[in-house]
């Protein structure tokens, strides 16, 4: 059976399937969608456009939180139990999409959210939501450092590894471990975000 063929040490098996998917680090077809989202966020901020600000913040934030929790708590543990070739094939198809999706959602959520809070007066020192919003900045700060400094470099390095003629399974596994190690922190931060945002919305 192809899946049980011995692997060459340190490499992801590539001969067991006739064609390995070509890995594109940045899916160019997605760039117009990103451009439209960025243009919408800029227009919403420039025009202080209430509906668009709320849309960008709620939709972006909902998708960001749901994706993070799903990936960290559901998909991540499943991936951790798959064979290295299976993980590598999944990563080759999945991670390029994340290179565009996550930064776009984060930008959409944070930029629109800050403007919305300013417009609603939630940032004023006497506002009951002020302290909650400062807490949300801290939560977002932790997530930003993890996402930008730890996860995104690993994601892109995995994609470059996958483009090689003989991807090194050990390098991929080493980089992917970062996702497992940070899943708990990211999950906790996202739960904190849900608590903070529901408090802010109901005070």
């Amino acid at each position: 059976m192809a899946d049980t063929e011995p692997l060459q040490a340190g490499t992801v098996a590539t001969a067991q399937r006739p064609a390995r998917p070509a890995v594109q680090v940045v899916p160019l077809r997605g760039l117009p969608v990103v451009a439209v989202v960025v243009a919408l966020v800029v227009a919403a901020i420039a025009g202080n456009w209430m509906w668009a600000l709320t849309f960008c913040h709620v939709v972006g934030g909902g998708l960001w939180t749901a994706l993070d929790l799903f990936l960290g708590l559901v998909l991540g543990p499943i991936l951790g139990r798959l064979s290295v070739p299976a993980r590598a094939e999944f990563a080759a198809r999945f991670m390029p999409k994340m290179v565009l999706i996550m930064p776009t959602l984060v930008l959409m959520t944070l930029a629109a959210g800050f403007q919305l809070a300013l417009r609603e007066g939630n940032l004023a020192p006497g506002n009951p939501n002020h302290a909650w919003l400062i807490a949300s900045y801290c939560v977002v700060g932790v997530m930003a450092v993890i996402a930008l400094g730890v996860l995104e470099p690993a994601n892109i390095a995995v994609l470059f590894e996958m483009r090689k003629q003989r991807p090194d399974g050990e390098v991929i596994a080493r980089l992917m471990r970062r996702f497992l190690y940070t899943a708990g922190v990211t999950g906790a931060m996202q739960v904190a975000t849900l608590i903070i945002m529901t408090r802010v919305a109901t005070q």
Partner: protein
Amino acid sequence: MSADPAAAARGRRLPPVDVLTVASLALVVVGGILMASYVPRRPPLAAPSALAAAGAALALASVLLLARLQRFAWDRFFAVFGWALLAYLVSAAMIGFAFIRDHTSGGPLALVVVMLAIYAVDVPLVIAFTVARYASPPYSPR
């Protein structure tokens, strides 16, 4: 020296460029949070300035450590760094636009621009370093 280039790339000990750069990014993020916590009032600049200066020093240290590397995949590093820099300059410009739109000016705006510049260099630096350290061959012929 290992005959396997992949194993050689894995086993290399490199200076802590990624650690210093992520620390720099963290300091800038903390400085940004401090400043944002005062909006719409004018923030005191002492603490954010100190954090930005420390962040800049760490970023500079990581660039210097990187520049001393003789055998490194520089072609791969610069290819990734260039594209990532473009992406993060767009991102930094958007954040800067939001601050200008909200009437931030003078010293606070200058400090925000400095922090955004550090952010826009830090992230591409750590991405390009992480990619290039596992490149095969592990260094560019000179």
